[in-house]
């Protein structure tokens, strides 16, 4: 099966690039997959993606820049790319703002899965959030109530368009139930997020020497905000915690360019705050392993959290916002942490302090989160996807016939064979 995936991908810095990396890594190991083509967003300044070399035992991987964040022509470019690579199926790895920070670009891009299906290519969407559960004002997508109402209406329309893909996968049971109830649709399904590491080794819960690090990780400026963490740091220092370092690991959200530069200026008086900038894949373990506690300074949430899965796989204690469906979602997934009120920096400082004050509590949370992260590996989740792929390919008779015609041993030979 030749699969094309419309997604962000490292070194591209768009949201969901990390998830795509792990998804593709596991997908290439599946015997059913003969080739993976990533239809990715353009890198800044015309930079080229490194083309992966053929690796023994893995399906070949091609990377084809096919769209640009905030462009209105993405649907046309992606469709042209799909026709050019001619895959058996197209999977979209999306959230609502994947294609743009402007409403027009974001909405137009989200028509692509439907257009793909109309072009007779089987089309499946992995949708990481749904409009119905996003606090649009807090997440920075709507400035006021009127705008929020208008966006909800537009969101309903866009969701209906997205649901014209052959299948739409969601990572949270509640989201499936909401779409079933509101849209009376039968083509949505639950596909768990999956853990990134297969059999990740038991992490070391001891802390490295030096200052204790309070770390946050992600793409900042919309609903992930640093201000409250800075306020909490000031409060903790005034309470006598004088051995702390705050690490802001990551870059601006594509919807909030320049935000972290503003934050650097806002904390110029705090020499123990460090901004790492974009964290490359190989640096991710070091960043998490150095953290005493990982903070989720969210003012809103947009679904399950890939960062939480990563914090869990490295056995880190976490501090989480008490908002919306986030607590419900993470509890369902087996995670736990200390909670804070996102409108009150004092509660964040207190939640951090509870972990700083008790090594036993920190290790207990770290172990629990590690165990939760070791749930269903993403490789197992992919076996579910493969079943769904087969089902929807069968709904496109021309594609199904072509697959049957091509189902010869020569296809398997695309994969470089391991040395004997």
């Amino acid at each position, binding site marked *: 099966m030749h699969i094309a995936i419309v997604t962000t991908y490292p070194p591209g810095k768009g949201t969901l690039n990390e998830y795509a990396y792990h998804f593709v890594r596991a997908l290439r190991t599946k015997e059913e997959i003969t080739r993976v083509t990533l239809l990715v967003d353009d890198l800044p300044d015309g930079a080229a993606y490194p083309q992966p070399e053929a690796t023994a035992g893995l399906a070949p991987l091609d990377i084809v820049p096919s769209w640009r964040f905030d462009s209105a022509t993405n649907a046309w470019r992606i469709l042209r790319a799909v026709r050019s690579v001619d895959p058996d199926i197209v999977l979209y790895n999306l959230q609502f703002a994947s294609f743009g920070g402007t409403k027009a670009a974001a909405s137009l891009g989200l028509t692509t899965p439907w257009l793909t299906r109309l072009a007779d290519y089987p089309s499946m969407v992995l949708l990481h959030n749904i409009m119905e559960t996003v606090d649009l004002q807090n997440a920075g997508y709507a400035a006021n109530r009127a705008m929020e109402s208008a966006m909800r209406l537009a969101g309903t329309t866009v969701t209906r368009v997205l649901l014209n893909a052959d299948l739409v996968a969601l990572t949270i049971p509640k989201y499936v139930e909401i779409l079933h109830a509101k849209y009376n649709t039968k083509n949505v*399904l*639950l596909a768990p997020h999956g853990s990134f590491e297969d059999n990740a080794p038991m992490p070391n819960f001891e802390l490295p020497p030096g200052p204790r690090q309070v770390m946050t990780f992600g793409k900042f400026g919309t609903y992930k905000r640093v201000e409250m963490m800075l306020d909490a740091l000031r409060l903790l220092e005034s309470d006598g915690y004088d051995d702390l370092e705050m690490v802001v690991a990551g870059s601006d959200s594509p919807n909030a360019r320049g935000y972290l530069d503003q934050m650097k200026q806002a904390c110029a008086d705090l020499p123990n705050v460090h901004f790492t900038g974009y964290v490359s894949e190989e640096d991710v373990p070091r960043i998490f392993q150095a953290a005493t506690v990982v903070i989720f300074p969210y003012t809103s949430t947009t679904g399950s959290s890939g960062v939480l899965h990563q914090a869990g796989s490295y056995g880190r204690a976490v501090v989480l916002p008490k908002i919306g469906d986030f607590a419900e979602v993470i509890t369902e997934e087996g995670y736990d942490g200390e909670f804070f009120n996102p409108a009150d920096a004092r509660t964040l400082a207190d939640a951090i302090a509870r972990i700083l004050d008790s090594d036993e509590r920190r290790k207990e949370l770290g172990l629990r989160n590690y165990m939760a992260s070791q*749930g*269903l590996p993403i490789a*197992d989740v992919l*076996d*579910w996807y493969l*079943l*769904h792929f087969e089902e929807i390919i069968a709904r496109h008779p021309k594609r199904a016939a072509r697959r049957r015609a091509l189902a010869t041993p020569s296809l398997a030979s695309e994969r470089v064979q391991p040395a004997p």
Partner: protein
Amino acid sequence: MSITSSSLTPSTAVITVSGRFDAHQVPKIQKDVDGMLANGTTVVVFDLSDVNFVDSSALAVMVRTMKHCRERGGELILCGLRQPVRIIFELTRMDKAFRIFDDMQQARNALGA
């Protein structure tokens, strides 16, 4: 919770699970399935008549088993799904992927066993 395994025919095996079918049962079931497949079984029937809960790791073991059965030219069949279990299959759309029968007798009839 209990797990029993038996043979319907030389190439068809039945695994009967009761209680919760979750991560705690998966290692034992996986071991049973691996043994059956190694001994020539190509068709596996999971009788879930007395199962009141399945989690994602249970679904994963059933998907893996189906994959291995198909590689051997066989199949995986499920029977006796109670309502809470059927809901999980519908939520994940796995009800479209598996052959599911109301009870063991129907599964036997379908297999001609």
